[in-house]
């Protein structure tokens, strides 16, 4: 049982993890203060015969203090979060040079249309893979994602990215992997009987490896 996040391998993973640990520390402190206080009071002020409780209706100073401190804390967390949110999911957050992918999600599969050698969608060398996505390392990729039937959710824990795919909407979501390797992809939104089998893999290649791989695939696609 651990409070440590699994290793993050995307550019914004460290920002998200930082916020997570920041909140973990802040809420951890609040947790300890409150629970320790409760235990202290439980022990110290337990009923003793012949004693009367201290008669008071409260204290305005105390109210102001414990209104202000949480308010300042949460607004600070909010402001810090806002910046990261803008980078990851903001309206204009997608880097202009991002490699485009088309993603069509349906019960119970992911269809990743890769852009091919020319790096553009809608051209002859595009090819589509089922439940497998291949991306180059250290280069932002943008998925234009839509669902055919019901709502699904694209979740790669290692990239700290999650985005619902909704029928009738094309949602752009971007990320940039920082470590080559193979990462698991899961569906995070209940989507029917096969929901728990709706996994896949995202393979992150080095730049050279990716060029070689994509050239191979595009040739195969052209032959077909």
């Amino acid at each position: 049982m651990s409070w440590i996040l699994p290793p993050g391998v995307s550019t914004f993973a460290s920002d998200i993890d930082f916020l997570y640990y920041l909140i973990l520390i802040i809420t951890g402190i609040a947790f300890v203060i409150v629970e320790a206080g409760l235990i202290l009071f439980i022990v110290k002020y337990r009923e003793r015969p012949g004693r009367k409780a201290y008669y008071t209706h409260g204290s305005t100073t105390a109210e102001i203090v414990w209104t202000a401190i949480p308010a300042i804390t949460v607004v600070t967390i909010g402001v810090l979060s806002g910046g990261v949110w803008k980078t990851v999911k903001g309206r204009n957050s997608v880097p202009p040079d991002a490699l485009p992918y088309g993603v069509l999600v349906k019960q119970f599969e992911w269809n990743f249309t890769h852009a091919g050698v020319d790096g553009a969608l809608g051209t002859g060398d595009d090819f589509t893979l089922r439940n497998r996505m291949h991306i180059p390392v250290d280069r932002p990729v943008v998925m234009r994602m839509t669902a055919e039937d019901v709502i699904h959710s694209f979740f790669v824990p290692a990239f700290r990215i999650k985005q619902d795919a909704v029928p009738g909407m094309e949602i752009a979501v971007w990320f940039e992997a920082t470590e080559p390797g193979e990462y698991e992809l899961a569906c995070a939104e209940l989507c029917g009987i096969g929901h728990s089998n709706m996994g896949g893999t995202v393979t992150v290649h080095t730049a050279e490896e990716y060029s070689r791989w994509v050239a191979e695939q595009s040739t195969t696609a052209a032959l077909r």
Partner: protein
Amino acid sequence: MATTALPLEHATHAEAHELSFIQKYIFSTDHKIIGIQFLLMSMLFLVVGGLLALMIRWQLGFPETAIPGGALLPETMAPDGFLLPEFYNSLVTMHGTFMVFFAIMPLLVGVFGNFLIPLKIGAPDMAFPRLNMASFWVAVPAGIMMLAGFFVEGGHSGAGWTVYAPLSADPEWTGVSYGQQLWLLSIAVLGLSSILGATNYITTVVNLRAPGMTWFRLPLSIWALFITAILVLLAIPILSGAAIMLFFDQTIGTHFFDAATGGQPLLWQHLFWYFGHPEVYILILPAMGMVSDVIANGSRKPIFGYHSMVYAIIAIGFLGWIVWGHHMFQSGMNPTLGMTFMISTMLIAVPSAIKVFNWMGTMWRGNIRFHVPMLHAVAFVAMFVIGGLSGVFMASTPVDIYIHDTYFIVAHIHYVLFGGSLFAIFAAVTFWYPKMFGRMMNPTMGKVHFWLTFLFYNLTFFPMHNLGVAGHMRRIYDPSQYEFLQPLAGINQFITVNALLLFASQLIFAVNFVVSWFRGKRATENPWEDNGLEWTVPSPPPHGNFAEVPTVYRGPYEFSSPDVSEDYLPQTTRLATDRTPAAGSEGGSA
């Protein structure tokens, strides 16, 4: 609406002649009986919801072993005792549905709204006793319909308790048609029951307070129930409207949530959560209110910061309307809205924190009596804090990207709904049991039940945070499909074992509840030495509650007052310094 009889007259009328058994206990218009009816019904659904949860846990902990007693389940649910994925989805859906709509909500609002409001404000009954009866008898068919869904062709709804469209909108996606339709109808019917109840509660609190019971002498339980009733009144019709639209999509081919012809799947989510977030506060505000009553009583001290407690309740009730989008951060909703909803969500932590600190302030320098209700109430505070703090994680939109739809959310909701609401319900049931049934519950059994529940509760739900941190998705039939989830199988088993023990511990409560009803020690008028009006009348109170209209001289939390030698001072006790309130002198807006 054509009734001209006033409740006061109504009560005297009713006493004039013997009521038949049916009038007295089945189709009763007495708010206390209706409260008890709601109590029995919702405890039944609590057990149902619990059993469904155990099946879910079994699948997650021991997928290789047939479920004990699984042979009783039909082939369409669990052939040879192994759950089918479609049945698993129904279990997940119906566990949430029963617990939210048929257990916790009626336990808090139906039971204690009914039982406490008239007694605590000094009224003989609700403003509309017959409407009150109708509200219960409308809820019963809703419950039956919801149960019936398991037995229809295609099985019960499997779209999650939030029944997201389009998964829920077309049988094509789940194979469920009648089950989903029954779900929607049941929710709409239950909504009618809630709206009738809420109308009644609000009218009663506004119009039937005893002389001297000014707004700021109301117990916090009544304040909370009053604000809750307003939330119910305004939020439930949204759900009813949405449920009807979805029902039409299912049955007569409308296209509200069908993207192919211009409908919008996200519209369902907006409607559902516009209802759903106020609903979250419907499920916690009454708990907060009743816990406040119990903590003041247990600590033998006035509530610390009564006024700020009231304002916090009102603030939560208000803010609850502008935070719904935080359930939809990853839904594809405009990300700029995400920012707005994040800030409003963060702000709601403030009134919650105020409440926690005021409860602690109440215990500070108290003379704390650890009776069973107090144990549960303190546990409420301790557990609600965890639920509140874990909420900060998901309020932060970037962190939510990762933990959304994981077990972190499951842990959070259970720390609020079980650790929060249900502990408060245990506190309230044990506290007002003597007033309801005229007998005391057994304190030893009560304490054993409390400690076992507290222990196994935490062992069950705390590790779910860690599952979530590791990325474990919720609503997953078979986590072993994912490599990164395989190392978590041990935690899942641990949770399952503790969930079983947690459920078993509730048997103690059930036995205590039933046996005490018949064999418990007779309760005196005021066994907890409390100040509320309900403790000035016999246990259980007669039909019509008060022999004469009580007069209120002070707030409900005058414990350990230096004016008297006892450590409590009932609201109706007249001291030499008290003046009789002139009718209406302090007005409704005091």
